[in-house]
């Protein structure tokens, strides 16, 4: 009996004391700089996640694991393509791994979920996915974004309206969550402000497998489709559109994610001629990009897309910010202030990024067309570079932010049903 008491009561107490004594952190002078990364290597965004992991390898190869005289340690967490899980993962990075900065996130909505944590834990967080409002109406002291989801499509709408005036009526199709709403909203806002007409809007769940019901409803009197596809949608939609016999009926415009290099090699000829806009193309002929593509291809055995470039670029910005404060990442305030002032052009595969003072970066937007090169490989050929694009396009920021955020119901479809 006494032995049992010893076993069941004294033992835990002894263990707890041992744990207490050993759990105190060794107070080292200054350990490595810890960078927490969030990605999705499982689920609907697995492909994008694996591109990001290869981008991390590429980054380590090119920039090394040392910055401002201090070594760097990366902590990778996987949210399994579930937004709610990102919250737990970020908490783990902050409380267990004690990271100094967090970067990453796929899904625009992930950004909205984790941005409040940045302020709660006072941890600088560079959100890679592009939640519009984190750099607009819901700005956070410790969060910033790599770009804004509507940034490329607003610039693209302007380009479409000026270079293709023959297009009169456009149908928009997009995934039914933040990214889709913001990509579509940005296009519609600028396009209609310039006199164009969006005559039909469709949003579909991200996990949609059969697009038949949507495709059969497309208005036949429209001239072009503005399509935003994410994840596995990019694989399925083009094929089904072609099978429905509508592959050549419309001019197909869209967000660059449709034909991003993460999926381009797996797509058939049905996407040839698709015109899309994004902050990157693997086909850019700059020195920085060619170096990036070369190393990335070695790891991934395929071209990098913007999911890869973005990860690489965002890490580059973080490195440059750390250099600018001489590695003093423990001073969170100084770190986030530096991050929010960065202007980086050297070593950025997608071109220069210039902080806009609102929590994101002005960036180049590339209008690309899918073509085949002489070897028969499909490429996103850049036909126009729109430099230094602001997240507010050309609208005054204050005026822009007075409008409601882009959502399923905004901008309203004035010309639908007409």
């Amino acid at each position, binding site marked *: 009996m006494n032995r*049992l008491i010893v076993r*069941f*009561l004294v033992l*835990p107490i002894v*263990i*707890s004391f041992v*744990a*207490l004594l050993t*759990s105190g952190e060794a107070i080292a002078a200054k350990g490595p700089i810890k960078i927490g990364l969030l990605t999705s*290597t*499982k689920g609907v965004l697995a492909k994008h996640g694996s591109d990001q992991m290869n981008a991390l390898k590429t980054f380590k190869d090119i920039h090394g694991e040392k910055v401002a005289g201090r070594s760097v340690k990366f902590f990778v*967490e*996987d949210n*399994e393509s*579930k*937004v*709610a899980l990102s*919250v*737990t993962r970020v*908490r*783990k990075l902050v*409380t*267990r791994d004690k990271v100094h900065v967090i970067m990453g996130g796929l899904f*625009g*909505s992930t950004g*909205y*979920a984790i*941005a*409040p*944590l940045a302020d*709660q834990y006072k941890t600088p967080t560079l959100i890679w996915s592009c939640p519009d409002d984190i750099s607009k109406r*819901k700005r956070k002291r410790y969060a910033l974004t790599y770009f804004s989801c509507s940034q490329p499509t607003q610039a693209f709408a302007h380009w479409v309206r000026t270079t293709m005036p023959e297009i009169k009526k456009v149908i928009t199709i997009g995934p*039914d*969550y*933040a990214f889709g709403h913001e990509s579509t909203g940005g296009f519609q806002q600028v396009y209609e402000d310039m006199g164009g007409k969006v005559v039909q809007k469709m949003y579909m*769940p*991200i996990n949609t497998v059969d697009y038949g019901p949507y495709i059969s409803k497309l208005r036949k009197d429209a001239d072009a489709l503005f399509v935003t596809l994410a994840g596995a949608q990019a694989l399925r939609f083009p094929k089904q559109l072609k099978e429905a016999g509508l592959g050549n009926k419309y001019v197909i415009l869209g967000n660059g994610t449709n034909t991003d290099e993460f999926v381009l090699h797996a797509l058939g000829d049905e996407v040839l001629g698709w015109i899309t806009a994004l902050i990157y193309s693997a086909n850019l002929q700059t020195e920085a990009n060619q170096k990036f593509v070369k190393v990335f291809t070695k790891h991934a055995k395929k071209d990098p897309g913007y999911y890869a470039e973005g990860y690489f670029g965002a890490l580059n910005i973080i490195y440059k910010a750390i250099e600018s404060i001489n590695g003093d990442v423990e001073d969170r305030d100084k770190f986030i202030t530096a991050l929010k002032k960065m202007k980086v052009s050297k070593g950025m595969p997608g071109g220069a990024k210039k902080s806009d003072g609102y929590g994101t970066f002005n960036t180049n937007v590339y209008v690309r067309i899918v073509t085949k090169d002489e070897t028969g490989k499909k490429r996103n050929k850049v036909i126009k570079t729109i430099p230094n694009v602001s997240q507010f396009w050309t609208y005054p920021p204050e005026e822009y932010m007075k409008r409601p955020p882009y*959502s*399923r*119901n905004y901008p309203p479809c004035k010309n639908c049903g007409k």
Partner: protein
Amino acid sequence: MSTEFVRKWGIGFTIALGVFLFVVYPMIGDEFTVIILTQCVIWGILASSLNLMLGYTGLASLGHAAYFGSGAYAAAIMSVHYQSTFLEALAVSLLVSVIVTAVFALVALRATGVYFLMITFALAMLVWGLAYRWDSMTGGENGIAGITRPDFLTNTLTFHYFALLIGVGVFLFFISLVRSSFGKTLVGIRESESRMQTLGYNVWLHKYIIYLISGFFSGLAGFLWVFYNSYVAPTDVELLTSFNALLMVSLGGPGTLIGPVLGSAIFVFLDNTVNMYTERSLTVIGIVYITVVLFAPKGVVGLIRQLIEAKMKKTEGLGEEEGKNISEA
């Protein structure tokens, strides 16, 4: 060693372990472990309330995400859109989950067996659809972010003890419920519905009441979840959540009080630690679940009981054998 002796010490050991893990360890462990333990408590409440139906009444529901989710969403909407206080959010959250349960139970209880499973699932999808489509209130696919805890609960440790206090309260209530004559009637219904009916029990009413209780506490778990995660999205209401709850119960041991708590602890632990060591975490977790289902169909608690009973039988058997030898000598 008598059975009673083993039982008593088994319970003593479990309590000591529980106290150490949930009360003592958070004070000394790192913050992330506390976060994980809080998650265990919240899922434990959900799994235990599902267990009242699945384990004690024999009603396999695949729709508990609906009650969990309506509690969660109600709390989130109240605190973000209406800036309500913590208590107001709690009241509305519980009220909404009870109302949803009351309506759904009316429909679901018309079916039994596999049809009950299907109809609870279908009903839960209604709540999912609402969360997904009612943009202005629920934020659609983006969910509701930035739900802040009241000042006295912002600390991770305080929130853990708060959740634990509620969890223990719920657990004690469940113990007395299961041991009451009402609880015994439920087990009777599980074993033979027709016999209970013949004996004059109002089977439907018993089922309806336990459904309500189960939904109420699932809503409570949802309420805690919202303030724990500061974020709610349609993924919290989808099939996977219902399924996970079902898994926790069957993993730990349906029809036992401690089973679901243990099941949820195993679930949360696997979910959060395996991925630190391997990229193939889902495969590893899957294999663990399949193994448990194949080799311990009554859950971990059932397996432990079975082992102890087998051992006792063996020693008792030996004793008899020895006695025989002695008498023969």
